């Protein structure tokens, strides 16, 4: 579905991604793991079109993503969450989610100015949709809370919720459980599995929490220093000596990811 082919990204001499190729298959949860600075988030930023690769191609369902501008990516059905949470901090949870619907909302300035029935109707439908997503994330009771007042865990939820509003085909999750406690982590991993199983999302996941990665992933790509060093099912990857070395510097028989 999503296809990286020989992608190279360089920042003034520093090679962030070097000759990276991988495929995300439809309906699967695909994880990218690797040590800090391996280039994982750069992969996301290429898909979101904040960065343009120096070489290589990125296609989504056969369409060349590199021809798009950042705001057009979501219209292809790709939505994302952010590692450090990029919410609209002074908006309520509700408004944050509604903003996620921007690509399909009415945009005629004259209709909006006069608050015509068609505008009110689509606003009411949007709110209904937002409540559904909140229900799914368990944050419905926070609908009218400003997001800057929420805990980091809830903010992450809202960030994911905003990406879910348009029913994307591919959801990019950048460290969804970073900074979360074990209970919240479990909630998120259940949510991710539900998104795949019940709602047919394809998910590309960046995560450091190995228990989560091992639990939910169908495929895992391991990166180090901008390169792909291993790929396979969670079981294959966690026993791969190259991977273990990348994480720990040397082979150690004690290390089997928990």
């Amino acid at each position, binding site marked *: 579905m999503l296809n990286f082919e020989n992608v190279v990204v360089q920042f003034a001499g520093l090679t962030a991604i070097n000759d990276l190729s991988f495929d995300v298959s439809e309906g699967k949860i695909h994880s990218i793991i690797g040590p800090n600075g391996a280039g994982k988030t750069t992969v996301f930023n290429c898909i979101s079109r904040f960065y343009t690769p120096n070489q290589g191609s990125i296609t989504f369902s056969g369409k060349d993503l590199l021809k798009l501008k950042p705001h057009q990516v979501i219209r292809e059905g790709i939505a994302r969450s952010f590692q450090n949470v990029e919410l*609209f901090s*002074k908006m309520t949870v509700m408004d944050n989610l509604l*903003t996620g619907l921007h690509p399909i909302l009415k*945009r005629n*300035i004259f209709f909006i*100015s*006069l608050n015509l029935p068609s505008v009110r109707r689509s606003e009411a439908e949007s709110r209904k949709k937002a409540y559904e997503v909140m229900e799914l994330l368990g944050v419905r009771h926070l609908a009218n809370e400003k997001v800057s007042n929420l805990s980091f865990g809830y903010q992450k939820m809202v960030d994911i919720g905003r990406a879910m509003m348009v029913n994307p085909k591919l959801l990019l999750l950048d460290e969804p459980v970073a900074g979360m406690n074990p209970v919240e982590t479990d909630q998120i991993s259940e949510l991710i599995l539900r998104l795949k199983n019940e709602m047919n999302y394809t998910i590309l996941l960046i995560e450091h929490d190995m228990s989560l990665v091992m639990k939910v992933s169908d495929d895992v790509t391991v990166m180090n220093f901008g390169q792909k060093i291993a790929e396979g099912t969670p079981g294959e990857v966690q026993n791969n000596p190259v991977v273990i070395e990348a994480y720990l510097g040397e082979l150690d028989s004690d290390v089997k990811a928990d």
Partner: protein
Amino acid sequence: MKKILENKKLYQLLIILFMLVFPFLVGNSGYFMSLFVTACIFIISAMALNLLVGYGGQISVGQAGFLSAGGYAVAILSHKFGLPIWILLPLAGVITGIISLVIGLPAVRLRGHFLAVATMGFGLSIPQIALNWESLTRGYNGISVMRPQWLSGDLAFFYVIVGTTLVIAWIISNIVKSGMGRAFVAIRDSEIAAQSTGIHVAFYKTMMFVISAFFTGIAGGLYAYWFGYVSPQDFNILTSLLILGMVVVGGLASIPGAVIGAVLFTLIPHFTDKFIGMTNIIIGIAIILIIMYRSEGIVSFLDRLKSPEQDDQVKGGV
């Protein structure tokens, strides 16, 4: 919850009622009606600027340029083509909107201080253009503007201004609570997240300037009709700063805030003009105090007044 909504409606109704009976409260006094009209013109300008600064996070220190542009648009077009007022007022908005592209387009690439300076340059240049483009603006002499016969009475035109102000307030509140308003706030809070939710940042930034200029241009047009005269000195850099001050003191990203700021800053000179130099001192002190102690603006006092009541409502409701 319902009760609060009703209360809000009630306040709005009271304000509208006050606006409608105002001329009779002051016995049709020309001075007080002009004061009121000035307040209305500043209310429109402050609401329009708040769209840009408060909601969109794009600073502008050139709103006076839009007021001048709107005023001159009305004056020039009514002289040259004798267009009727109901075409001229919206047209003044449209022309000002087009002029705003001059700063709206570069503004897409400028931020913070740089944008402030660029808009200030715009605000400074408009009076100079008006002064020097004599064939169009009659330079220093200015242009007189005639109201149409059926609106020549001050009372009749007073209601035109009140009506326009109310309609614009309604339209801006519709924009603010729509998806478009959310896009503005989204750009203010995080351009990156805005982009990845599909918001075309450059387009919406330009849009903000055009919409803001459109309404300010209409306000300038109303000014020209009410006072019957436009000249290069009407709106200068101080006016721009004053409108920005209204928005900050009244409350950023709040329509009632813009109204409060505009009314306050119109009233202060009324009380202080007897004492030379006091007006600016008091306005300056007000701005400093608000920025230091209550950056949400005066309107946040109203929120506080309401909130205990709201808690009761919620408890009672549940």
